[in-house]
């Protein structure tokens, strides 16, 4: 067995290989769910390459909707979203997978594949992009070690606790070295010890050149980060500050 420090060192080199990130631009985005629930209203902001942006807001403020739109899971009612100068919602269905390979998403509800083990879930992302078997067998254990799930390799999601599922979801978002990481409440179910670990990990990845967009409720995290904070309220951006704080 590797020691934790050894594993982390390995992760460090692994993360060094991460790609540089591209720019994301939300342009007058409005999303209305039928019949008339306004989730987002005229949202415009840009996220630069290698930036670390936190999005804060009450439940229902529109954080998750924002991520869904960026992943092209849903279409905006009005406005456009650009990723690397490409209109996300004009990408044809057949090319969506290639686009999504550039993004690593941590979903609020984890979205782990219920029929696959922890290992299988993380390996799946690599299988999808055609990574050779050997490389998968080398990289998956490293990332699992990093998120502290080495002992749960062969467990199905149903056998994991909320926190463990969340860490598996984080591992899945990192494994294929995406250009951007979208993290929707990635620490919502974690104890303070693991929360700190995950935040450090996100910061490390960001330092090495990956754009990170983090949606969270966690006041302490935001205040300790000292990075850009966008505050959403009732579907609108009410504050967008460099080195922001958690104010609601």
């Amino acid at each position: 067995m590797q020691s934790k420090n050894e594993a982390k060192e390995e992760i460090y080199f692994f993360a060094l290989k991460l790609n540089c990130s591209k720019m994301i631009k939300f342009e007058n985005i409005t999303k209305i769910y039928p019949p008339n629930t306004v989730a987002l209203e005229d949202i415009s902001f840009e996220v630069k390459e290698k930036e670390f942006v936190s999005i804060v807001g009450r439940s229902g403020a529109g954080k998750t909707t924002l991520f869904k739109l960026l992943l092209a899971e849903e279409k905006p009612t009005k406005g456009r979203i650009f990723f690397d100068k490409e209109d996300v919602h004009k990408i044809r269905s057949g090319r969506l997978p290639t686009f999504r390979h550039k993004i690593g998403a941590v979903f609020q509800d984890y979205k782990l594949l219920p029929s696959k083990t922890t290992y299988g879930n993380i390996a799946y992302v690599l299988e999808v992009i055609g990574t050779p078997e050997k490389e998968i067998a080398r990289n998956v254990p490293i990332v699992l070690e990093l998120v502290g799930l080495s002992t749960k390799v062969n467990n199905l999601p149903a056998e994991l606790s909320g926190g463990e599922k969340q860490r598996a979801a984080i591992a899945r978002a990192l494994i294929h070295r995406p250009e951007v990481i979208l993290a929707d409440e990635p620490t919502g179910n974690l104890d303070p010890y693991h929360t700190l670990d995950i935040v450090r990990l996100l910061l490390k990845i960001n330092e090495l050149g990956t754009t990170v967009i983090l949606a969270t409720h966690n006041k302490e995290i935001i205040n300790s980060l000292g990075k850009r904070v966008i505050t959403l309220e009732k579907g609108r951006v009410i504050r967008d500050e460099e080195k922001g704080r958690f104010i609601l």
Partner: protein
Amino acid sequence: MFTLIKRIFRSGWISFSRDGELSAATIFILVMTIFLISSLFLLRDVSQFLITNLQEKADISVYFKKDTPEEDVLKVKEEISSIPEIKEVQYVSEEEAKNTFVKKHEKESALMEALTEVGGNPFLPSLNITAFEASQYTAITNLLETSNFKDLIEKVDYYQRKPIIERIFSLASLLDKTGIILSIILGLLAILVTFNTIRLAIYNFREEIGIQRLVGASNWFIRGPFLAQGVISGIFATLISLSIFSLVCWYLSPKIAFFFPDLNIFQFFTRNLWTIILIQFATGILLGVISSTIAIRKYLKV
């Protein structure tokens, strides 16, 4: 590409073996469908065989008047043989007719006594005429009755057998039509049931399919394992129904041969083995693949 196919089949095999009950249910439905379709194939051929057989057995007999000289009868035979619609003409002399009758009924003393009582030979010389097609018998009968040798003829027994012959033919054509309609209905039913079984299986996976799309899996990467699962089920179903089918044919063959001595179902089965295997594989795999393709489409829109 090879890695992709390997992954797809491995993944398909894993889901196939993990969802044991579901796979068993799918295979069961597929076996029923394959079995049904193969039976219909065999039944159609068997009924075709029976119809041809019946048609071959239908004939008309022309009885000549008592004491018609043999050379006259033979002359008529020659003349009839030259008609292109006629397949075969067989001459049965008075003696032969009597011998056949005696041979057939020698154990029935009442008939034998009656024959002795009548004295001499009460049988008439006759010609047995077989045509290529049963529909031509009416025309042949008309021809015989207007020919220049009509005075030699005592009777043409087509009229006596006509209702039976016609009923057999209408029955045969009815059977044929019913068979086709039944095949279509049952085939459609089987496809619907299979489709629904697979659709339900995929419905259970709808959430998983959505997640796979979100983490960047292409449609083929998602669809692949389901198709592989369909193909695997199809192969298993084919092997199972092939064994059941051959067993049933082997078991039923002597029993059917008891009623229809010329009909050997097992031989029929072995002679058409490759066609049957092909039909079964095609049914099994196509049903699996088409059903899963249609059923999965809806969930791939994320």
